[in-house]
């Protein structure tokens, strides 16, 4: 799980803006109570890449960056392009993917101020009436150029410095990763509005041919030869284009965002144009989020603009009118989602008695707007930047967090129930008792195996009942095991240097394809034992088999059999009353021993429980 670097000083400044409620020493514990895991409190060094203005934050353990993640500059070659900006105190937090609204210091401060009771209830943000309009091309709803959703905003009266640029970029990246699933579901673009048209001509979000319109992508200078590229060329030649080309694979037209005069802002979700790049001097921005899910697109924009408004009090956010093929709407839309919550339901779920007022104030501390109804129900307005509230039960958890898990009174459920073991587990325990009593040590080996280990090494044909993995991660684990013997011999092989004799056993499941089963396969509990030593032979394993069969009260008889993995004439099968084969025992064939690199005779037993 990625970590977020939360700047502690800025967070404290924002939380304590009205009055001092949080000390630095209490940051960790407060975050814990809020359900945020603090990995560590540490210092970071902040650098800026002079080639692309990318701000890079590194912990002490990470050291100075070797290259720029954004433009690829190698700082080992170009030491002059890496500038150290200073030190930063950070809390490194596990990124809680469902709470993008607390990724940034602004959103986190909003949550903390509510939680600590400084500013509770639903925060209202002022969004100015739209001046700009954007038209969405209906072709973007078609499969061959599918990216139908877009939400935009205009940011005015901005004052950017390195810290704020870093904050903006971090939030953009974190949203890409979490809500956007690496830009697939949603991707965000931020542009310097001063480079764009700012009048009534509509902007457009359209689908263009791969060899259509050329523009200079981010990272290239307009003076560079070949900098003016078609969308198709960007996917082939530009580093970022190559990285994200899979998101547009199979498309015959690519999404393109243009201003009222036709200048290209970006090719979502791949890359922005160089001409619209933000700098420290930027005072107004155009922001867009495009994607596959309208909910994700709108939430991402809401998180971004409200987070920035928390950090930059002077910021003015202006809406954008989006004209789609079927509808017209205005974004960002911060209308809260209404939800009703039964007071009794909440009390029962948490396990505490609460009055409606108490419950309401808990929810207000979590940033919700609450109105009471007379019938024991709360009318809750859920902030439009929360992405995790799907059901009243999510509000109940919010109330529980505000109440404090440490304040709950742990108790047991009152209903009496009778414990019941599974029969096969009891039998397995008995099997382990018998074999440990015979001086055997239990081993536990991996239940995944390979055709080589299960069949080839044992000189037998592949078992058609083996379950095969579609996407194995190693050649050693391609099937579910069908026998415990390979695992036992592998264990003997890693113990070659230790005192002999060695007596090992395993009790565990093997897995077989079975079309009668709902899932197409089933497990079978098996037991296997192996003996290795200078003088170990059939008589020894036969004695173990007899003792085991007797103690487990299995009705079985022994008969000679053939098996290429065993020495001919020294292998037997165990058969039950119906003639069904229960298992096999014998002296392992020297070729099999060679396959495992074993230097002493081995006798084994395997049978089904």
């Amino acid at each position, binding site marked *: 799980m990625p970590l977020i670097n939360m700047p502690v000083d800025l967070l404290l400044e924002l939380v304590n803006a009205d009055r001092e409620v949080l000390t630095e020493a209490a940051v960790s514990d407060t975050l814990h109570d809020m*359900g945020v895991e603090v990995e560590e409190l540490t210092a970071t060094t902040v650098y800026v890449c002079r080639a692309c203005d990318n701000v890079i934050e590194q912990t002490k353990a990470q050291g100075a960056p070797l290259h720029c993640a954004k433009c690829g500059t190698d700082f080992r070659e170009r030491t002059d392009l890496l500038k150290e900006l200073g030190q930063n105190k950070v809390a490194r937090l596990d990124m809680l993917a469902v709470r993008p609204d607390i990724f940034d210091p602004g959103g986190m401060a909003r949550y903390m101020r509510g939680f600590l009771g400084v500013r509770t209830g639903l925060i209202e943000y002022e969004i100015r009436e739209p001046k700009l309009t954007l038209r969405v091309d209906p072709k973007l709803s078609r499969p061959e150029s599918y990216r139908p959703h877009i939400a935009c905003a205009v940011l005015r009266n901005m004052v950017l410095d390195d810290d704020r640029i870093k904050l903006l970029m971090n939030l953009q990246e974190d949203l890409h990763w979490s809500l956007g699933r690496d830009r697939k579901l949603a991707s965000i673009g931020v542009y310097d509005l001063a480079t764009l048209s700012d009048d009534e001509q509509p902007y457009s979000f359209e689908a263009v041919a791969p060899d259509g319109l050329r523009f200079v992508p981010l990272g290239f200078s307009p003076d560079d030869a070949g900098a003016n590229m078609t969308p198709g060329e960007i996917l082939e030649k530009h580093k970022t284009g190559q990285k994200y080309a899979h998101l547009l694979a199979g498309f015959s037209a690519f999404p393109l965002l243009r201003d009222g005069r036709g200048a290209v802002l970006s090719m979502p979700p791949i890359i922005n144009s160089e001409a619209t790049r933000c700098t420290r001097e930027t005072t107004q921005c155009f922001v867009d989020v495009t994607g596959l899910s309208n909910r994700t697109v709108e939430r991402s924009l809401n998180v971004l603009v409200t987070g920035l408004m928390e950090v930059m009090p002077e910021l003015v956010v202006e809406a954008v009118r989006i004209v789609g093929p079927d509808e017209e709407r205005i974004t960002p839309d911060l209308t809260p989602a209404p939800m009703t919550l039964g007071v009794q339901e909440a009390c029962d779920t948490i*396990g505490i008695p609460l009055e409606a007022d108490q419950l309401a104030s808990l929810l207000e501390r979590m940033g919700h707007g609450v109105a009471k109804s007379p019938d024991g129900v709360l009318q809750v307005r859920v902030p439009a930047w929360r992405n995790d509230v*799907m059901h009243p039960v999510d509000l109940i958890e919010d109330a529980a967090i505000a109440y404090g898990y440490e304040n*709950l009174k742990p108790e047991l459920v009152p209903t009496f129930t009778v414990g019941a073991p599974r029969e096969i587990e009891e039998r397995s325990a008995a099997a*382990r008792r018998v074999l440990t009593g015979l001086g055997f040590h239990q081993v536990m080996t*991996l239940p995944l195996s390979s055709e080589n280990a299960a069949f080839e090494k044992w000189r037998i044909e592949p078992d058609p009942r083996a379950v095969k993995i579609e996407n194995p991660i190693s050649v050693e684990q391609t099937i579910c095991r069908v026998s415990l013997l390979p695992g036992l011999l592998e264990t003997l092989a890693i113990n070659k240097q230790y005192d002999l004799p060695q007596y090992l056993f395993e009790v565990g499941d093997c897995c077989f394809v079975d079309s009668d089963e709902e899932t197409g396969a089933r497990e079978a509990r098996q037991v296997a034992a192996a003996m290795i030593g200078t003088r170990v032979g059939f008589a020894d394993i036969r004695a173990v088999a007899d003792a085991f069969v007797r103690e487990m009260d299995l009705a079985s008889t022994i008969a000679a059999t053939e098996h290429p993995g065993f020495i001919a004439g020294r292998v037997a099968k165990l058969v039950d009353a119906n003639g069904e084969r229960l298992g096999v025992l014998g002296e392992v064939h020297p070729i099999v021993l060679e396959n495992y690199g074993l230097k002493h005779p081995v006798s084994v037993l395997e049978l089904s429980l």
Partner: protein
Amino acid sequence: MELPQTQFEALERLGTLAEPTTIPELASLLDSDQSPVAAACAALSEPGYVSIRETEYEEFSLGKDARPFIAAPLPERVLIGVLAARGGSCALTEVPDHCDLNAGQVGQSLRWLQQRGWGRKEKDMLVLSDAGRAAADTTEPDERLIQALAADRVARADELAREGVPVDAARKLLAKRKGFLKIKQRTDRRVAITDAGKALLTKGVHGRRTVTQLSPEMLADGTWRDVDIQPYDVTLAAKKLYPGKEHPFQRTLERVRRVFLEMGFEEIASPWVESAFWDFDALFQPQDHPARDMQDTFYIAKPQRCRLPDEALVERTRATHETGGDTGSTGWRYAWSRERARKPVLRTHTTAATIRALARHPGKQAGKYFVIGPVFRRETVDYKHLPVFHQVDGIIVDPKASLSTLLGTLGAFYRKMGFPKVRFRPSFFPYTEPSAEVLLWLENRGEWVEMGGSGVFRPEVTLPLGVTDRVLAWGLGLERLAMMIHDLKSIGELYFATMPWLREAPLCR
């Protein structure tokens, strides 16, 4: 009076001897090993029946570097031979031409030649001295000692002196020749009977036999009464024995299992090969959730497809994913695919088993279930990860189930597992709400450690299954617990066990 048999025999024999004797001699007279005889004499000396007189002496033998010179002359003697034959002098470089010594050996021998005053080096010439000329016919003390100790003889200094070997002079000459002479400090121990001992013999004394092992015959005929059983040094090490043992991890699994059974839980299981429906969909995991990627989950090529459960349940699940259905949820708002739900996977968590139990669970009845078993994740192997690990999942269905009873139950569970300090943190898991992370205080590490997730199943999970009571659920990885209990550094130590560990790891831990 009665003495242990060996003491009696030693005393009796010493009484017959006129002179003090040594332990080896006495042992040979008694036809016994030396050590019991030595022990008997020591015991007899305490009350003063025998006296033991100790004399220190030196014992000489040849070192391996002296051996070649038993048959051959010392190199300096070779040199005077050469010089005498060459008229009293010879160029140093030419010496090897006239004898068996090579240039190196000649160089090393000069020291001894000059020390004896037999010759000297004058520029490049080696010149014989008068003493050297005179020495031609003598045998020097060290040479005599070497001869006296030929044939691996070991001799006492006084013995050699009696034979006329000039021991002290020889010793001085050989002092600087490393590896020529071995000298050991020895103690001569002579035992003799005292007057008190003689008096005891006269007065009448007899022996009592000591045995090392009580035998069935002695018990049968009662002769055990006439013998002493030899005492042992009971503090000496014994040979190591190891009982056959269950695997240490199995013992952890069994302990978890026992705790759940004691708390009134019913044990359940579910298949390794599981449909995506039960592993993910029934848990309200959207079908595009990253945990479902090929990157993280093992998908199955054979069998190719699972059957879905009864149509009504499938339909309720679809509706819940898409719009929330009748659960009061907004749903995930996407088109749910039956085909994706039919994909077989290797189960990624044992929650697949508890969710199946929940589907079977009769409505309006309390129940507690648990499952222990392997789960599969597409992890690259390292010291913390294997593609397989074990989980335990527990659920409680109860009309009184609440977050407070969840914390109470987990507290009781972990206390029974041996962790008295438990703490909870709000957390997020996709299928529980509210959710809590369990933290245990590890006394030996002095820190809180995350143990696993827990929570109340979301209504989107329980309602489609027909369960209207709240359901408490939790799960935890067990390898980590076992690694803490058995103090292991790598998860691989559990699955690729070595014999020393299997043998030595104490059963009670």
